[in-house]
């Protein structure tokens, strides 16, 4: 209940901030555009990426430009006056934007606490070391005989794992008691052969969050990869 209340409170704050943010942003835009002379109608169009030269250059552009400069001429003294200082306003807008980002983060944390309360939370992480004997392709995770996730790893993600990154593969809820986790690792093994191995762990979920790690290591002596499930107490 407490979470719900704080969640709603954070949402209302975020909405209020958004409303505030839209007002100065609009006035800032107005202030920034006001002193300028009317934009020349024949400003050169941004260059097309392609041989977009399909459209021939318009010959009507030149008279339009003349007309625009003729219109702009009487307003020349206005353009000469110094533009209003909008730095303060800009800083205010930046501050408000930062508040929105902070609130968004707060909301994310609250949402996670609501969806995955600490007493039922289970998180499974994947880490990899060296990777000379195994190129990871996918991991399938089963908890209590039920497939909960099948994750395909892209080369970028594998690279990140090899650099020491840890990937949160699964976040879910489990009731207190005994459970079984089975993980299947697919990829290329030694000599570039298709390789699939499994690892199992029977664990007991108590009160409090449970963190499990699927570790992929190289076993130099056997010239084979090794898969291990580690229970973080």
């Amino acid at each position, binding site marked *: 209940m407490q979470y719900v209340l704080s969640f709603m409170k954070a949402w209302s704050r975020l909405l209020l901030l958004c409303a505030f943010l839209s007002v100065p942003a609009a006035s800032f835009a107005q202030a920034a555009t006001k002193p300028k002379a009317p934009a020349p109608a024949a400003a050169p169009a941004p260059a097309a*990426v*392609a041989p977009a030269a399909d459209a*021939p250059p318009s010959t009507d552009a030149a008279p339009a430009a003349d007309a625009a400069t003729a219109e702009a001429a009487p307003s020349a003294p206005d353009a000469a006056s110094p533009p209003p200082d909008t730095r303060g306003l800009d800083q205010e807008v930046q501050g408000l934007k930062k508040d929105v980002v902070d609130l968004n983060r707060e909301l994310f944390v609250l949402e996670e606490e609501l969806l995955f309360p600490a007493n039922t939370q289970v998180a499974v992480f994947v880490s990899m070391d060296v990777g000379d004997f195994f190129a990871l392709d*996918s991991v399938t995770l089963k908890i209590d005989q039920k497939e909960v996730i099948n994750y*395909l790893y*892209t080369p*970028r*993600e594998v690279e990140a794992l090899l650099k020491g990154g840890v990937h949160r593969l699964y976040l879910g809820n489990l009731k207190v008691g005994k459970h079984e986790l089975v993980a299947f690792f697919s990829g290329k093994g030694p000599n570039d052969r298709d390789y699939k191995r499994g690892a199992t762990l029977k664990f007991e979920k108590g009160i409090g969050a449970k963190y499990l790690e699927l570790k992929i290591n190289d076993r130099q002596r056997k010239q084979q990869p090794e898969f291990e499930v580690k229970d973080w107490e």
Partner: protein
Amino acid sequence: MQRLCLAAVTFCAPAMADTSYPLKAHEAPDFALHAIAGGNVRLSEHRGDVVILSFWGSRCTPCREQLAALNRTLATYRSAGLQVYGINVDDDQTRALAYAHGESVTFPLLLDPEKSVSRSYQVDNLPMTLLIDRNGVVRNVIRDYNAKSEELFLQQLRALLNE
């Protein structure tokens, strides 16, 4: 006269593009699929690029023509930040593999044997091509392939690359 033609193209273009597609102007559903050439591809890793997704089947002749056309398009616009993916929806993947090995398509051909991605993109026609902008939003869908639709498609692609 030129202005008249330009106006005609501008007004006709949205009419020819499919406005009934429910995912249009929405964020493209993320996916990860196996590529025929090996490795996996995840859509969300290509934020910042304009992405073309083309759903195809090996029995569909226009699909093959379109894949060849997309190959040419990619060769032209790759340096401007274009990525192209062909997603095969065949039940029997051997035909898809045979096609992939026989044709010199330079972009990744992905396999969707469970049709999960096809379902999430509500594919109801082959070929079906989606244009996804640099922010990951579906900007347009083309449910047919012919010279006219290709021209329109290229116009939209250039506009997206220029954004």
